[in-house]
């Protein structure tokens, strides 16, 4: 059974729908990447899963339970984590407090999770008392991912994690994502750097105009001449 199953979802902000029947299914070990042209509705898919835009048709199931249009404070305890593209850290709060906010829903002792997040991002441990707003773009991205990992998600949704980062930081962020996945967290991410991301994705979804165009392993999509011509710039 798939960890998350999105079947023929239509969604939007109230006006014309942005998603017109999207199908996505991924397993608990997958790194899935959604690629496609600007305005295709990639980020909207993540927002629809997380209850931030209204799903008008179709169904979303997570771990066998229906979560269509569920609120985030129900989804996070179920094991979903979301890292938005922008404004994804609490700038006025310290790195440590940002991580604590990720564990807000947990009433148990989360110091182990905090240790493992610091072990994954040693830079953050050093800067844990610093305000997140004072960090560089790459470090902020680590805080944002760390925050989302504090709730011990089974599936992490990442909206363009490499946006605005220099190539060195981009590789770092991708390495971190692979590491998170190796620790047993499924990944569903939207990415502009399609070639790079599909290179390590176990599943790829090419979206345009709010509909699925191609689906396959990352490798298969990279090798498909149609995908290359229409969506990867030749």
């Amino acid at each position, binding site marked *: 059974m798939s960890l998350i199953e999105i079947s023929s979802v239509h969604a939007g902000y109230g006006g014309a729908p942005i998603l017109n029947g999207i199908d996505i299914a991924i397993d608990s070990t997958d790194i899935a990447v959604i690629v496609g042209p600007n305005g295709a509705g990639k980020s909207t898919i993540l927002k629809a899963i*997380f209850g*931030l835009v209204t799903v008008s048709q179709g169904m979303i199931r997570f771990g066998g339970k229906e979560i269509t249009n569920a609120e*985030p404070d129900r989804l996070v305890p179920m094991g979903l984590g979301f890292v938005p593209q922008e404004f994804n850290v*609490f700038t006025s709060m310290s790195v440590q407090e940002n991580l604590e*906010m990720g564990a807000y829903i947990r009433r148990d002792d989360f110091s182990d999770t905090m240790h493992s997040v610091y072990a994954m991002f040693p830079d953050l441990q050093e800067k844990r008392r610093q305000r997140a707003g004072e960090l560089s773009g790459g470090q902020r991205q680590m805080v944002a991912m760390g925050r989302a990992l504090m709730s011990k998600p089974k599936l992490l949704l990442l909206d363009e994690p490499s946006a605005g980062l220099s190539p060195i930081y981009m590789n770092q962020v991708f390495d971190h994502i692979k590491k998170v996945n190796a620790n047993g967290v499924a990944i569903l991410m939207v990415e502009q750097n399609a070639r790079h991301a599909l290179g390590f994705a176990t599943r790829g979804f090419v979206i345009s105009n709010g509909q699925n165009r191609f689906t396959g392993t990352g490798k298969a999509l990279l090798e498909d001449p149609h995908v290359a011509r229409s969506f990867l710039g030749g």
Partner: protein
Amino acid sequence: MNELAFFINNVLVAGMVLGCVYALGAIGVTLIFGILRFAHFAHGDMMTMGAFVAFVLASLVATFGIQTAWPTGFIVLPLALPITAALALVIDRLVYRPLRDAGAKGVTLLIASIGVTLMIQGLIRLLFGTSNRSFFETDPKQLFRLTLPFEGAQRPITLSEPQILLVVVTVLAVIALHLFLTRSRLGKGMRAMADNPDLARVSGINTRQVIRATWIIAGALACLAGTMLALDVSLKPDLAFNIVLPIFAAAIVGGLGHAYGAIAGGFLVGFAETLAVFNWTVLLRPFRDAIPWGLPADLSLVPTDYKLTVAFIILVVVLLFRPTGIFRGAST
């Protein structure tokens, strides 16, 4: 030296008292703005409402013939604070929450809060009439006089018991708030929501719970400020409506959404008001022989009747030179 005592009484003591009241009010305004993103215009009347709650409780206590060494209005605070907090929650449930759920903008909520102002004031006038009331009809207000340790000092520094209590209670409230915001899970959640509401939501922070906590704190602090103000002066239906402008000035000057800024802003506005209306001639009087052109009778910057303009001027100057407040606040 009498002049110095006069200065201390009229500027330092009075500024301190005003500053405490403004700070307690401004913390509420700034928290509500940070979390709910609207200017809570009815905050002054929430303070008045809290003072009347305390007054009713104090009257009840007095009818049982109970009298202690402390002012009765102060003794009933442990009961008045939760009652006012509960009333704040009721107002939110009846007025603001339906609007929030309908996706109303901040301006709509602001207008609604003006309506709440009218309702609270109307209800108070309906129930209690328009007269001035005093918490000290039976037990007299205790005064503390400190004589300056200088030769020839006759005029003492005068502090009333409510004034001392006000300062002590404000310090305690600020410390408690600080610990709450920096140590507790819910307090940190409040800061997170003020910082970035969308991210707070996707982190799974229960926004309704945070909103409830905000009203409880703002309501309790409003009751505290209103009651202490009424103990210091007297109780009337527009007790705190009259100071809603300096309270907003304090919150804006400190940077909206910034609790510590509100405290600093409160004292800044409080001292600025007392300094501006102080007649500086009094301080210069001992040196009048040295001034060849004589001493003018009144050297205050602003006539007492125009005290409110001081808050306005500070507000305008701060907004011109540091639009986000002394501390950087939340943007609208």
